[in-house]
């Protein structure tokens, strides 16, 4: 299986660097973005196997970012990640086509398994 390339969007820099480090050890290349706007910009120029997106960010929130990603890159699978478990926003996210909705703190192995499943669906794994 080829190496996965993942776009991680989260305004928590500590979380970004932790996940990036651990994913690297599993052969996943991580590009990080600290806002929805930045993520959309990156997606214009590069293809990713999967996007992991924090729901609550300053500026454009995760749900809006998801909406735009799906409108412009429908084949890109997005896993939502949130510190605030809320059934309404989760449901909206799924309806907008998120692959899944995970809750922080998330076990690394679970996150890893989930992005693999998502990448499998996007047909890029």
């Amino acid at each position, binding site marked *: *299986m080829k190496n996965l390339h993942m776009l991680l969007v989260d305004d928590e820099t500590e979380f970004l660097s932790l996940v990036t480090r651990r994913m690297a050890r599993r052969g996943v290349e991580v590009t990080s973005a600290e806002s929805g706007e930045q993520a959309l910009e990156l997606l214009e120029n590069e293809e990713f196997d999967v996007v992991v997106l924090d729901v*609550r960010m300053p500026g454009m929130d995760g749900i809006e970012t998801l909406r735009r990603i799906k409108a412009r890159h429908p084949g890109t699978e997005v896993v939502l990640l949130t*510190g*605030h*478990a*809320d*059934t*309404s926003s*989760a*449901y909206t996210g*799924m309806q907008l086509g998120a692959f*899944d*909705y995970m*809750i*922080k*703190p998330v076990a690394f192995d679970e996150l890893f398994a989930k992005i*693999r*499943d998502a990448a*499998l*669906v996007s047909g890029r794994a």
Partner: protein
Amino acid sequence: MGSAFLAIRQFLGRGRRQRTREQLARLREEYRVRCRSFRLLVKANHEALAALADLEELRRAGRPFGMARIRALSVRGLMAGFQMVRQLNRMAPGTYEELFTSLASVQTSVDAVLRRPAAESCPDNVLPLDRLTRQCSRETGGKLARLGEARQRMGIHIPEGFVITASACRRFLDHNDLPQEIDRLLQTTENSSMAGLYELSSTLRSMILRAEVPSGLRVDMQDQLTRMQALSPDPLRLAVRSSALGEDVAGASFAGQFHTELNVPSEHVEDAFKAVVASKYGPAALAYRFHRGIRDSDVDMSVGCMEMVSARVGGVLYTRDPLHPEQDCLHISAVFGLPQAIVDGSAVCDRFVVSRCGRRIVERHVAHKEWRTVCHPGEGTVLEEAVASEQDVPCLTDGQIVALVGMGLRLEEIFGAAQDVEWIIREDGAIALLQCRDLHFPALPEESDAAESAPEELERHPLREPLLRGGVTASAGAAAGVAVAVRSDADALRFPEQAVLVARSARPRWAPLLSRAAAVITEHGASAGHLASVAREYGVPALFSLPGALDGLAEQLDRGAVITVDADRGAVYAGKVEPLLRRPPVRGLMFGSPVHHCLEGVLEHLAPLNLDNPDARSFAPENCRTLHDVLRYCHEMGVREMFCMEPRSGLEKGVSRRLVDGVPLQYWVVDLEDGLEAPEDSDLRTVDIADVRCRPMLALWEGMQAVVWRGPPAVNAGGLVSVMVRSVSDPGLAEGAASPYAVRNYFLISREYCSLQSRFGYHFCTVEAVLGQDPEENYVIFQFKGGAADWERRIRRARLVGDVLEDYGFLVELKEDALYARREGADARTMDALLRVVGYLVVHTRQLDMIMGDSAEVARVDEQIRTDLAEIGARAAGIPPPAGDGTSRRIKGD
């Protein structure tokens, strides 16, 4: 009908010559998508059921949990349910759209239970204290509202002051965008260690301390301060106190969790206000809510700002004895100066017991009061040495005691319950009321034989000499544990479960430890203090004011030795003194709590299963009323879409080739991609096993062939009758009927993928596996259902096979006569071995159900399966099988 089948139909409709490679590729692709959707559906089913099981476990166990956990599990279950609905719709586009509606309505109901109720907002930022009544308690908390009411109805002195309303406090948090951030932090750190708790608390509090007070509130506070200053010749000093809403939750005392700042100059009131609001997230408060099942949203803070009155004497009055509510007595604890040291648990104080009827002073304990708390000329309070002539005299006169008792009884009358009253006697001799609230009594310990027999037992086995004797019973009972000294927060962080906490003072700061402590001993502190209240609430035996406890127990503390605390009789013993130990008090504090209640509300929409019979007409999307219904429906339909909906007769004629191993076999192979050695040749009707290069199929086939199947097992009479009964009652089994049971055995393969669908008579089984170099990719799924024998026997077989698979590290799910087993992430070598095991089971469990009526036979079969599998395993590893086991069975190959 599944899209793959539509494709197959189209494909076949064109006739053999018209088929192109392109179409075959499309067929394969659709089949792969279908397998993938089914796999995701099954995974999601596991996730959802696990979330439901966790929620049920929370409901049952009574261990503490918070809203964050309920939210997370609800979301997990619902989203996994969504995933199942989505994948089912991918397998059969357009067929199951209605399920989205059913699931959405479950989600809406759950959300309604979980959503924080919008609080009614009051436009006032501040309210003057002396105008409050109990009706204001939604904005001011019960404690402050009672002060106002006592002033108005009884003319009791209360300090001049005002309240910053709960609405104003909420607006303050909203103004700084904090509520969501607080929720997020609570979500991500719940259930963590003691260290996690302290860290969370510190983060939350510093966020609030840094926040900005909205200008409207600042102006209103300033107006009140100006009004108060106008009444006083001296520069205004204030006591800034919490008054939380929700402090009146039945049975919950909230003792000492929140912050109070004394003797605050008016220019610092704003900071003190923030500190009090922040104290909602102090470690004691966080731990308390968690253990009592109180939601964060159940507690709203309001803040009282009162004129600081300097006290000649201060203290606490209980209108009943919290340890013996049946006794007809009031208890007064008093010190010279401010009563702060009593509630903080650090003071040695005078104690008086007064009879309720007749108001006679029945007990007097005059302590040696070396220190007293007074206002510091600058800010705050200080301990100063008491005047020598006052150190050993009672701080209250009999007249003052009687006056206090009178006030207490009137307060009790107005508020309709026993009261916990904080009071002072001003320099001018007048009594002022600082605080009053309902007195909390500990839950009565369950009657236990041990407790009753204790005295007798003690007579028969006289106790050894106690290590220490004395002290005040702050919370009843006796308990044993390792002695651990707690002097600092660092000690608190290290405090182990079920140890005996030994501390200098009964500080409220140690309250978070009480959920883990077996008992508490302190050198200072009164039963009127906050820590005592919490100990009683948790049912932790506590012995306070035991002089020299730390020194006296130095040796035990050093060694980490076990001691027994008898709080009732005021004694501490070395080791574990069994006769003293009662059964541990029941601490089911979660049951009936707001959080538990909420969990039950959520479960009502998630857990019940209404769709129990898949053959019933009511088994339909519109009847899915709970999450569990949706899961059940999706799982059933997913299995049908994957395996049962349509016989594969078309596929068989079109692209399958019969497997030959010397002779033609009853197995057909469909090469999805790259699974056969020889490139596909349109004329070939058969494929030799030697040409198969699909790794998982080869391993599976090894297992299937390893031990020759001896045909249907010898059936006892009952088994045979059971089979005949089923045949008659099931039209699908009638001779020549076009039934799914007639379908033959198929391998669908690629280089690293294999799916086997096999039916043998009534027995229906599938294997799906990926076996490659990357362990992360590898998995094997084995499932079967059905059988020919009666229900009981089929269930017994499923259990037997499930046990075997569990021994091989499979996750096994049994549902009646169906078995679903899965293992993922094993390396290629392990996968190879596992597929042999599965292959063996595919062949040898076919008709086992028929002999499962007889327990001796079950045991024999179990034994045989395990022996065979051990041999297969040994053979794969190159170890010769154990010789001469006396059976006539032979291992193929070599």
